Each structure stands twice: as structure tokens, then as C-alpha cells.
């Protein structure tokens, strides 16, 4: 059966595909950093909230870390908007099709995120009033966000298999077709969840440093605790990553092996993660830089895997382009000005003198 793929929009792309691909991967990395802290954060805080019923260290750590979660949630959502915009521009006809097939699940993401978000606020604002029930609130939030991760994995994986679209369509009712839950999808989901736990562990270790002056003991313990999550999850990741790699279809793996850039990215990603693992007990900063490198390398590799999957069906480089350079330049200028403004606000907020009498 010939694959049924919708025709791309007859309006030219507003920028060359390489630029859109760069922005897609770049903004996706930004989204990942926030998302990892959020998803991993709610998982770790679920564990800590239950342990915190009988352990004041866990209790206090969970309370403090939960204050970071609302802004992180806001930024996860907002930073996620950009890559979704660019993926629709480059691969819209695939993305919309897989989204429509699973429409009810896909739309549910909005409600799951909103519930989870309010769950986080509930936990944070009423932590003491909730008492032992706080742990259940956090666990429910973690489950909601895991469901979101699962639905995302299904959609973003299904869109890579246009050859299956029509079969899925014929065998189901549009809106309820979640796509097959294969070992590849589960490995992919596990890969992301474990990465989130690792990076959130690192994030918590970094956050603990801020408590150094007022509660040095908690700060020391928080750092050790975060690093333990980071190292444990990263060790697990080496297994999960292998599982994910070997769940990829043979032809995709072969095409990656034949691609020097892909091999280079994979090797440097693994190397940087190892480096992060070794550095974490000594220098959090060095470990963070190494992990930023690892995440970036993996995000580029992920894009190459997508390109390899779609090569037989569609190449965005074949689309017509009519660059909108003036408005693009305005975007770049505003982005720089916006980041400077955010930077200034963070500066005045965190500068030591910033305390009203």
C-alpha cells in the first residue's frame, strides 16, 4: 500500500529549512532543560514526600524545591511552544495527521498539564496544611505529567511512520487511534524519563547550594541527595539508552552508522555524560556544562534519526522558500532585547542587596 501523506501547504516556507531546523533543535534543547527539571522534579519530590513523612530532611527538601516548580512549569510550557511551532512548519503534514488520529488523547494533554500545574501550586502553597496528603498530591502530579510524556512519545513517534497512517485510519476511529505501543516507544519514553530524573537530580544539587548560609547541613545533604539521583539515573541511562538504540529499526541504525556526524554525536553524547558522572561529586558546574553538551548532542542526533526515518517519504528541503527576512530580523532583535530584559530582572531579583527592610 502506498503511504498516504497529506500534501504540504502551498505557501512557501518563510525561511530556508536549515534555519528552521536549527531553531527547532535549539528551542527543543531549551524546552528539554526546563521539562527535565519539571518531570524529574515531580518524580523525585514524590519519593521525597513519602520519605519525608518520617524524615525531616526529605520533608524540608521537598518543601523548598517545590517553590521552584511553578516557574519551571511555566517555562516548560512556553519554551515548548517554539519547537512545536517549527515542527509544524517543517513536518506539519505528518504531525497534524498523527495528532488527528489520536485527537482525544492529544487534546487531553492540555487538561492533564493544567491539572498537574494546579497540583504543583496546591502542593507548594498548602504544603503544611496538606500534611501527609501532600505526598499523594505530588504523586498524582507526577502521574499526570508521565501521561503527558507518554502521549507526546506516541504522537512524535507515530508521525515518523507515515507508511502506517492509512492502515491505522482504516482500522480505527479517527481521534482514538493512539498508534502502536511498541518496545521502541517504551524505550524512548524511558530514555526521556530517566534523563529527566538525572537532570532534575543535578538541578536539586545546584539549588541546595543556595541554602548554604542559613541551613548548611540541609544544603550539604541536598547536594548529596541530588547527586545520588543524578548518578544513579545516569548509570541506568546507559542501559536504557542501549535498549533505545537497539530498538531502532536496523535500517535506521545502519544509516546512522554510515553517517560520520551521527556517530560523532552519539560518541560525544556518551562521553560527555560519562564526564558529567565523573565530575558530579567534585564540581556541579563542570558536570552541568558536560550534561548541557550531552543533551545538545543527543537533541541533534534525535533530529538526524527523524530525518533518516522520513527520508523515503518527505524532505523539507524540497519545499519552496520565500524568506521573510525583515520580520525575522525583528524577531532576532526582540529576542536579544527580551533575554536582556529577563537577565536584568533576574539580576535585580537575586542581587544580595535585594531585600526590602
Amino acid at each position: 500500500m502506498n503511504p498516504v501523506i497529506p500534501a504540504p501547504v502551498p505557501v512557501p516556507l518563510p525561511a530556508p529549512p536549515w534555519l528552521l531546523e536549527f531553531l527547532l533543535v535549539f528551542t527543543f534543547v531549551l524546552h528539554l532543560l526546563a521539562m527535565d527539571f519539571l518531570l524529574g522534579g515531580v518524580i523525585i519530590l514524590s519519593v521525597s514526600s513519602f520519605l519525608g513523612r518520617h524524615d525531616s530532611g526529605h520533608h524540608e527538601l521537598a518543601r523548598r524545591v517545590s517553590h521552584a516548580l511553578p516557574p519551571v512549569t511555566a517555562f516548560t510550557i512556553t519554551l515548548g511552544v517554539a519547537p512545536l511551532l517549527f515542527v509544524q512548519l517543517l513536518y506539519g503534514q505528518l504531525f497534524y495527521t498523527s495528532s488527528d488520529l489520536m485527537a482525544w488523547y492529544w487534546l487531553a494533554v492540555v487538561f492533564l498539564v493544567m491539572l498537574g500545574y494546579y497540583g504543583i501550586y496546591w502542593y507548594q502553597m498548602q504544603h503544611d496544611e496538606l500534611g501527609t496528603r501532600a505526598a499523594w498530591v505530588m504523586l498524582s502530579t507526577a502521574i499526570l505529567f508521565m501521561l503527558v510524556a507518554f502521549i507526546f512519545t506516541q504522537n512524535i513517534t507515530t508521525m515518523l511512520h507515515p507508511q502506517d497512517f492509512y492502515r491505522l485510519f482504516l482500522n480505527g476511529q479517527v481521534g482514538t487511534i493512539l498508534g502502536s505501543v511498541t518496545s521502541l516507544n517504551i524505550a524512548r519514553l524511558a530514555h526521556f524519563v530517566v534523563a529527566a530524573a538525572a537532570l532534575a537530580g543535578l538541578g536539586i544539587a545546584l539549588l541546595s547550594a543556595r541554602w548554604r548560609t542559613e541551613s548548611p547541613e540541609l544544603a550539604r545533604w541536598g547536594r548529596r541527595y541530588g547527586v545520588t539521583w543524578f548518578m544513579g539515573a545516569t548509570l541506568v541511562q546507559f542501559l536504557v539508552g542501549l535498549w533505545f538504540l537497539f530498538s531502532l529499526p536496523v535500517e535506521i541504525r545502519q544509516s546512522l552508522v554510515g553517517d560520520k556526524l551521527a556517530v560523532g554525536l552519539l560518541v560525544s553524547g556518551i562521553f560527555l555524560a560519562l564526564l558529567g558522572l565523573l565530575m558530579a561529586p567534585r564540581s556541579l558546574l563542570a558536570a552541568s556544562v558536560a550534561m548541557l553538551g550531552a543533551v545538545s548532542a543527543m537533541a541533534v542526533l534525535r533530529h538526524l534519526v527523524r530525518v533518516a526515518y522520513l527520508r523515503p517519504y518527505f524532505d523539507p528541503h524540497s519545499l519552496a522558500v520565500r524568506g521573510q527576512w525583515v520580520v525575522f530580523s525583528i524577531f532576532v532583535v526582540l529576542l536579544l532585547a527580551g533575554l536582556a530584559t529577563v537577565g536584568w530582572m533576574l539580576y535585580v531579583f537575586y542581587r544580595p542587596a535585594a531585600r526590602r527592610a
Partner: protein
Amino acid sequence: MNYPVWEPFMLGGGLVIGIIAILHVFVSHFAVGGGLFLPLTERKAYRENNPALLEYVKSHSKFFVLVVLVFGAVSGVGIWWSIALVNPEATATLIHVFVWGWAIEWVFFIVEIAAAFIYYYGWDRLDPKTHLLVGWIYFGAAWASLLVINGILTFMLTPGRWIKTQTFASAYFNPGMLPSLVVRTAVCIALAGVYALITSSAVADVALRNQVIAYAAKWLLAGTLIIPFAGIWYISTIPALAREISMGGAPAVTIFAGLSIFFSALVMAFTYFGPHQRPRHFNMVFAFLLAVLALSTTAVTEWVREAVRKPYIIYGYMYSNGIRVSDVERTREVGLLKSARWVRHHEVDPQALERTGEEVYRVQCASCHTVDGYNSIRFAVKGWSWAMIDYQLAHLSSLKGFMPGFVGTDAERQALGAWLASLNPVPTNIAIEPASSAVRGQATDATGEGASQP
């Protein structure tokens, strides 16, 4: 035609978007107006040296963050989610035209969110001047995000020169952009008042409570005073057909347009005689009733704004069912089912006439109609014979100006008619077959089956 059609059963796609969008509009305009209310009221508190008022602004900012940053942000994503599911072709087109516009809006969102958190967490950390400045940064970014999205929204009804030039500038600076910006800004100011009435009616200190209630009422009145003038300006820019639809052409739309004016007048009258004149008698219940009334105004107005765009989703360029105007001729020649990708039958099957007709319905009609729910098609053709339905379908755009003309071959139109006729019991004593049937012979089958349906 290009994408699989999702039919959210009783609701229909339009209502799914509508529900999410109306709630989002009600909160997102508050996100902008409230962003002006916070720094202005904070400044007022400093100037009057009124610590109680400052305390109120603090508590209002907490309410603001919980409503705006969570519900406002996520429901905004929800609109995007739902339009992509219900009308992927139009969404894809908008993204191709406006991606840098959205990218710019995204920058403003980032600044907006960062500023909102720093404003909220900064009450005890920042000196008053800096804190106020952060509030202004929030408002600037929030209003700028409205500035961007407003042009994209009005583009759909008044794409103006874009149809010819296809440039970003002509798409964004479209005829409806400026008047709509004024309307929406006024709505933001009014909604800032609506929400402030809710929080102010919860203030315990009676003197402060009365002061803030009267103050919040002024915001609501100021906004509602501007809206009618800007509204008339806006209506003067929309296409003639759209105006006709809202002023008598389509009764339902006209009634809703009337309701929009009626609800607005009610809001204004209640506000003037209630919280503005008698703040002492105002309470939380009244505040919520006023909010419900304001939400109803938003709902009917947004509904009218969407309805007058029919039969298009992008005026003059794409019909509400996602078919491009430029594709109509070719699709009529080739056939809808051959052009559509997500169908089981790629041509009219005389052995399965109704099932083919149902597929024609799904591809061409289901973006606005449902079978039994919102805008029910079964109800719309009740009592109509196949011949009557076929005549209506053949002259759809002239009989019902707000519907796109039927796109497809004669056989496809008759298959659709056969399925529609089968939805209700056969009317008696009238010709039941189309005058010249391209699928003659199956006619009796089709209506015969229909007769057995409830």
C-alpha cells in the same frame, strides 16, 4: 480533505475550539488588563501612602498569577492544540504566513512570564521603584503579545492585500487589525475591572473595600465606554457579507450579535448602579454574577466574530471546511473522493451509496456540522426529500450564503444527498428522487433504507 477528520461527537470541532477559546479570551484579556491594573494601583498606593491598598494589590497579584499563568497560558496552548486538530489545513497556512509573528509573540511570552513571577515573588525583595518597573515590563510584554496575535486573528476575516501579495506585512497590517486592537485593549481594561471586583469584594477592611470596589468599577466602565465606538469602527472594516450575516442575514447570528450588545449594556448598567454608585452594597455574589455576565458577553461576541467569517476560515482564500478557493475547480473535475486522502471509497460506489455519501459528509461538512449534536445535520434536513436535498446541495452557496458551495462531482453530491435523506424518515407525497440522477437506480434503495431509520 488533506487530513483525517476528527469528529468530536456531540460537540463538533467548532464548539471544541469555541469552548476553549472563549475561556481563554476571558482570561487572556485579563492577563493584559490586569497587567495594567497592578502597577497603576500599586503606584496609587505609594502616592496616597496607603499601606492597606498596597496589601490589596499584593493579594490581587497572587490571584492574578494563579489565574493568568496557569489557566491563561495553558488554555492558550489549548486553542492552538484544538485548531490544529479541527482545521489543520488552515492552521498550517497561518503558521507558514505568520511563524515569525508567533516567534515574536513567544519572546513577549517569555518576558511576560519572567516578569509576572518576579513581580509576584518580588514584593519583599525589590525596592518599590524596581518592583513597579517590573510591573510595567510585564504589562508592556503582555500588551505586545496582544498586538501580535490580534493581527493574526483579524487576518482571517480581513486578509486584505495578502491574497495578492502573499507578504507578511500585508497579512499582518490588514484592514481589521487596528480597530480590533482598540476593541481588545478596551476589553482588557474592562476585564481588569471585572476581576478586581471579585478580589476587592473579599477585602475585610470595610473602608478599603468600598474604596477598591468603586475604583475597580471605574475600570470596568472605562473599558465598556470605549468598546461600542471601537466596535463600530471595526465593523466598518469587515466584508459586506459578514456585516449582512450579523445584521439580519442569518437569524441566529443576528440574535447573538444583539445579545452581545444587550449583555454589554447590562454589564455597564449593573456596574454603574451597583459597585460604582453603591460600593457598600456590593458583594462577592454580585461580583461573580457580573463576571458571568461579562463571560457571556465574551462568549456571544466571539461566537459572532467566528460566525460572520463563514463561509470562509481565511476570507476569500480558504473555506471553513479547509478547501482552498483555488482548489475548487480542480476538485469538481477530479472528484472530492479522489482528491481526499482519508476515505475508504475513492469513488462513488452505487452498491454503498449512503456509506460513500457519509464519507463525502465527513470530508466536506463535518468541520461545522455534527450528525446529532451541535449544528445537527439530521435536524437541518428533517422533512426534506432526496430531491429537495439535492437541489439545496446544488445551489448551496446561493441559497445559504454563509455555507461554502458543494465541491465534488454530481455523483458525489447525490451520494451525499442519499445519505442525508436516509437520516430521517421519508416524507410522503413529494418527489423523492433528484430530477437527473447520476446514480439513478440506486435511488429507491437509498431512500428505502432511509425509511427504516428512526
